[in-house]
């Protein structure tokens, strides 16, 4: 291999490794289940910190859509938290915080 190609080859190798890691998402929480039972009371604190600026303190809506009374299920909320959507970034919270905030949003969303 030509000497000048070594940095390019090394860079390509590192990029390939990064892509493999990103595809594997080795530390991503499981997609089928939350990290643990969600606690809506702790979730309210997470919601105030991470969600209320867009969805309103009581989920009444704002920049983000209305959540209160929307009938969203835990699976729908979890998916949106993980994948984001519109102006909402993916992964705003994760792990136990995600489980807690999902439990809280589901309680808000009950019609």
């Amino acid at each position, binding site marked *: 291999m030509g000497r*000048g190609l*070594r*940095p390019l080859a090394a860079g390509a190798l590192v990029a390939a490794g*990064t892509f493999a890691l990103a595809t594997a998402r080795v530390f991503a929480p499981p997609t089928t289940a939350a990290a643990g039972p969600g606690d809506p009371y702790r979730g309210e604190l997470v919601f105030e910190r991470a969600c209320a600026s867009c969805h309103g303190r009581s989920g009444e809506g704002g920049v983000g859509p209305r959540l209160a009374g929307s009938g969203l299920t835990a699976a729908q909320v979890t998916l949106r938290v993980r*994948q*984001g959507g519109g102006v909402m970034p*993916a*992964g*705003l919270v994760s792990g136990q915080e995600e489980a807690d905030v999902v439990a809280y949003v589901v309680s808000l969303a009950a019609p």
Partner: protein
Amino acid sequence: MAPASVADVYTDLATAVFSSTIAAKAWLATGAFALVFVQLATAARIYGRLRFLPRRGRAVARLHRWSGRAAFALTLPVFFHCVTILGFQTPDARVAVHSLAGTFAYGVFAAKVLVVRDRALPGWALPAAGIALASTLGLLWLTSALWYFTRVRFGL
């Protein structure tokens, strides 16, 4: 340690300082991006293109090395969260561009480090590698932190 608990530990650490993991990433990336300008300015001075810093001074070279190390260190938590938790995603153009640039970021960094150490390469190789790395980091910042600050919220 189970993957979910690794994510939990990371979340706890990030939210000890910042309001959310995404805010932590945005600010750490902003710190790294600010250091990119230090890198560009000191590199330009080392090459004699800027004159407001001491020419060929060891201080300039030291500042260049340490700002690069600090920028790299700031990107590590961002890399961890983006690559091992969020992963490669393509739900829209912004995220797709960000994922693609992020995939190549450490590859460009590795190439640049090797170019620095190889004195047999032509003179244009190092500036080209440095500009490629700065451009990649700039693109990553534009498609993440700037977007977050302007479209979601500006704050810790």
